[in-house]
Every structure is written in structure tokens, then in C-alpha cells.
């Protein structure tokens, strides 16, 4: 069979089209084209002689202070790095990791409390308790809606802003960073978990109910084990995000990686600042690796 150009034209004209999608695509293109002049990104010449000089000076200051003016050897660089690592680096790295771990635990527990309420299938009385009163049904509906709205609000506000606010209210400790990470990511994990619960296969749950299980029993023996693999996948996905964010929250004044980075920046010790940036990148890569391992275990066994 041969295909003629004419047939292709007919096929092309008959392709599914959506006015809404076209308009949104054009809107986005317009937004991008407007954003460059509006943001002042195109104004003036960027690479002035002074700026290039500044870049050169900055590059020079990235060289470890002790090694400036002499030969840069691998030994010298390693010595500088290990000295920084012992003095502060290790402590900074481990406290950053610890912040992300505690935050992830708090996020996980908060999600277990809130996600079942937000899941419309579980919180609605109709599926599980056909005899429930109309008042109970509408109350559960309102509660579920409010929880979803709360999730949206929690995840709309960035961690950095939450941390800034909590630091102002609670004073300096690790709590503001932990709470900020936990609160924002509960908004994300809670929504994902609630969606998971809503999309669970209904047959096992109906069978449990048929055996006479109460709502709580169905939740514990049916919903919990069925949604666990996906919940854990999302959990590790969010923990990766927590680690990434926790490298910068210290910049607000919470003792962790970002704090020492900001400290070095304020003293214009750019070599030391660069060391902390590298350390942060290393931590993120390690977190990604651990999370990838955990997720592959989950995928293989579920």
C-alpha cells in the first residue's frame, strides 16, 4: 500500500486539536517573551570590563588561601580540605543530614494522620458505612476538603519562607529548619498519599468490609498495607528534596552547612565558601544514591 501526500494532508487536518491547549501554549510563549525585558535581564551590557575583572578576582580567591602564590599541588589541596573537614565540615554535613532525617520522620508521621482524612474515598462515609447519618457524611466531606486546602497552602509556601518565619517565632535552634521542611513536604506527601488511597483497588477493601470490619479496621488492615509501597516511594522522593533544601536553610542562621557557608561568604573567605558548596553537592548526591537504592528495593519487591 502506498501513502499519498494527499492522504497525509487529510490525516494532518483531522488531528485532534484543543483551543484551550493552543491558547495556553501561546500565553506561555507570550509570558516568556515579555519576561526578558520586564525582568531587566536584557538591559545594558552585561560583560563590562569591570565585571570581567571582578570575575577574575573571584576565581583567584577560590584558590585555597594557604596555597596562593605558591604551586598548587594535589597534596596541598587535600591538606586544606581535610583541615576544613575536621574543623567544621564533618559537623556541618552531619547536622544537615540529621535535619533532613528528622524532618522526613515528622513529615511521614504527619502524613499518616492527615492523608486518610483528605482521601475522599476513606473520609466519605458512603463507601464504608452505608448506614451513616447524612450529618456525618457532610461533616467528613468538609473535613476532607479543609485538609486538602491545608495541604495546598503548606506546599505553596517555600521551605525557606517557613524556616524564616519559624526562626523569627521560635528563636535559634534546629527546630525551625526541621519544622519548615516537615510542614512544606507534608503538603506534598499528604496530597500524593491521599491520591494513592483514593486510587487503591477497591476489591480487597470491599471484601474486608464484607467480613464485618469497621472503618478503623479497614483502614489498618486494608488501606495501610495496600498504600504502603507507593507511600514509601513518594517518601524517599520527598526526602531527596529535604536534603537538597536543608543544605541552604542554614543560611538563615541555623547551625548547619548553609550557616558556615554564609559565614565564610560574609568574611569573603571564598575558598572556604566553595568548600561548603562542594560539600553540599556531595551530600545531595549521596542522598540521591541512597534514595535510588531504597526505591529500587521497593520496586523489586512490590
Amino acid at each position, binding site marked *: 500500500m502506498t501513502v499519498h501526500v494527499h492522504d497525509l494532508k487529510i490525516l494532518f487536518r483531522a488531528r485532534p486539536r484543543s483551543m484551550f491547549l493552543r491558547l*495556553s501554549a501561546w500565553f506561555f510563549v507570550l509570558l*516568556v517573551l515579555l519576561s526578558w525585558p520586564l*525582568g531587566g535581564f536584557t538591559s545594558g551590557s552585561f560583560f563590562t570590563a569591570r565585571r570581567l575583572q571582578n570575575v577574575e578576582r573571584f576565581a583567584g580567591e577560590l584558590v585555597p588561601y594557604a596555597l596562593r602564590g605558591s604551586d598548587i599541588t594535589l597534596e596541598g589541596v587535600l591538606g586544606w580540605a581535610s583541615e576544613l573537614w575536621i574543623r567544621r565540615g564533618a559537623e556541618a554535613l552531619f547536622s544537615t543530614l540529621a535535619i533532613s532525617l528528622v524532618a522526613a520522620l*515528622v513529615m511521614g508521621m504527619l502524613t499518616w494522620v492527615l492523608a486518610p482524612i483528605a482521601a475522599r474515598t476513606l473520609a466519605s462515609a458512603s463507601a464504608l458505612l452505608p448506614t451513616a447519618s447524612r450529618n456525618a457524611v457532610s461533616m467528613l466531606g468538609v473535613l476532607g476538603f479543609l485538609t486538602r486546602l491545608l495541604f495546598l497552602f503548606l506546599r505553596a509556601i*517555600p521551605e525557606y519562607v517557613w524556616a524564616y518565619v519559624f526562626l523569627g517565632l521560635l528563636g535559634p*535552634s534546629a527546630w525551625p529548619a526541621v519544622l519548615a521542611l516537615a510542614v512544606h513536604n507534608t503538603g506534598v506527601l499528604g496530597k500524593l498519599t491521599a491520591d494513592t488511597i483514593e486510587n487503591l483497588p477497591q476489591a480487597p477493601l470491599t471484601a474486608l468490609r464484607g467480613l464485618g470490619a469497621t472503618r478503623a479496621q479497614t483502614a489498618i488492615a486494608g488501606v495501610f498495607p495496600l498504600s504502603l*509501597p507507593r507511600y514509601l516511594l513518594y517518601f524517599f522522593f520527598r526526602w531527596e528534596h529535604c536534603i*537538597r533544601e536543608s543544605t541552604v536553610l542554614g543560611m538563615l542562621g541555623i547551625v548547619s552547612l548553609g550557616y558556615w557557608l554564609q559565614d565564610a*561568604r560574609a568574611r569573603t573567605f571564598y575558598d572556604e565558601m566553595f568548600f561548603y558548596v562542594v560539600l553540599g553537592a556531595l551530600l545531595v548526591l549521596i542522598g540521591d544514591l541512597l534514595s535510588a537504592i531504597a526505591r529500587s*528495593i521497593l520496586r523489586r519487591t512490590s
Partner: protein
Amino acid sequence: MATDRGCSRAGSRDGDALASQPLSARARPWSSLLSVIVLAGVWGWWFLDLDLSALIPAQANRLVIFRFFSAALHPALTYESSVPPETAPLWLKAAQAAGMTVVFAAACMSLAFLLALPLAIAASAVWWSSVLDPGRKQHALLLALAGSGYAVARATIGLLRSIHELLWAVLLLAALGLTPLSALFALAIPYAGMLAKGISELLDEAPRGPTAAVRSTGATRLQQFCFGIVPTVFTDLTAYFLYLFECALRSSAVLGFFGFPTLGYFISASFENLHYREVWTYLYTIFLLAAITDVCSGAIRKRMTA
């Protein structure tokens, strides 16, 4: 992205796993993962020397906290202190800050896309097997070149995305000074990494059926890539792009803390002046921005998969 796709695969297999495995065997990896999570959290708690009583604020602070959270119920509509008469009204200032937040995010995503495209293609195995037919014997030098191109692209992506955008901001501001363009690059570099990672994974995981159909028409390997693989990832790519745009909105708001005129700048200014009701006005503005984006991207995704 990759996580979501992995999840959907795992999710579809839940039912089979349930039927074929005894309960004890199924429970083992999950409960051990759960205990690792709890143990890690407890270690973190011990390492940070956290104390629950630190969460109960001192008498003096309690009033401030109460004042902050009760301000949530009545955000400011006008300034909380007297301002010069020619100052723009608060709602206009909030709208302008929201506009700048969108401007930074949109410019960031456009720049990130341009940076990500070549990286993503170089980091996808499908592309290299399209250019170099694995069935034919290739010159060793060509293979080595392709292999190093792939490796360099992967390493670059890892490097770009593992450094947080605020760390890029610190580096670029120190090197280039406080200009909008350095802030834009600080945002766009990690987002280019994330975008490139997502695109290359989508390309590599694309279904092989359409490619086979295009091949049966006698298309070259390059044509198979362009017309068999690229169109199939378009829907998922749009969804991922929209997700990253939402993240970019938040990042651009935070950039305000470094002195750029996005929402973060006004939040910190009002908070430092103890104008909590103004803070809530700006927080609700971010919320509104996120809610609008959420609704729009949901509608777009629904129509694309329909």
C-alpha cells in the same frame, strides 16, 4: 518524574504481588525500610540534641506567636504603618511582587529549557543508538567519542542539579554582582539540570511500538528518533515542565531574600518590621499564585491525556 513513572509501574503490580506472595514475605522489605527510617530519624534527633520543650515558647514569645497566627485571619489590606502619600497601595505592591515572581520563573524556565535540550539529548542512550547503529560495526574512535559525550552529559547534569539554586546564587552573586541576570542564571542552572535529567529519562523509557511503526515505513534511525520517540514523550514532558515551573515560582519567590523584587523580599521586609498582617497578605499572594498554577496545569494535563 522518573519516580512517578516508577510508581505507576509498581502500583499496577500490587495486585499480582498480593495474590502470589505469602503475607510474611511481602511484609519484610517494607517493615525493614520503615525501621531504617525511624532509626535514622532517632539518630538525627540525638545528633541535633533536639528537645521537645524548646517547642514550647517562653512567656514573652507566646504573645508574639499568638499575634502572628491570629494575623492569618485578617491579612492587611492597607499598610500597617504610615507611608509617604505617593506610595502605591499594598494590594498593588503585592500584585507587582507576584508579577515579578512569575517573570523570574518564566524567564528561568525558558533559559533552562535552552540549556537542557542539548544536555538531555546527549545524555539519552536512545539518541546515541539512533546516531550510531548498534547493529553495524563502527569505528572505534567514533564509539569512544560517543561514549565520552554520554558520560560528560550525565556528569554535567548531576553537577548542575546537585547544587541548590541559592548556592548557585551565592556563587554567581559573588562573582558577577547583584544583577538580575546573575539571579536568572542561578535559578536556570539547577533547573536545566533537573529538566535535562527528566527529558533524558523520558526519552530512554519511551515505548518502542511507535518506533517500530516508523521503521516499517523505511525511515532511517535518525528519523525513527525524531518521529517515533520524540512525539511520544511530549505529553509527559509537558507535565514535568509544568511541575518544574511550579517549583521555579517558589524558588523565584525565595530569591527575594537576596534583594530581588520578588515576593520573598517583601515578606522579609514586613516580618522585620513586625507587620505580621502584611506578611500574611504576601503569604496568601504566594498561595493564590500556586493555586492558580495548580488549577491551570491540572486542566492542561487533563486535556493532553484525554
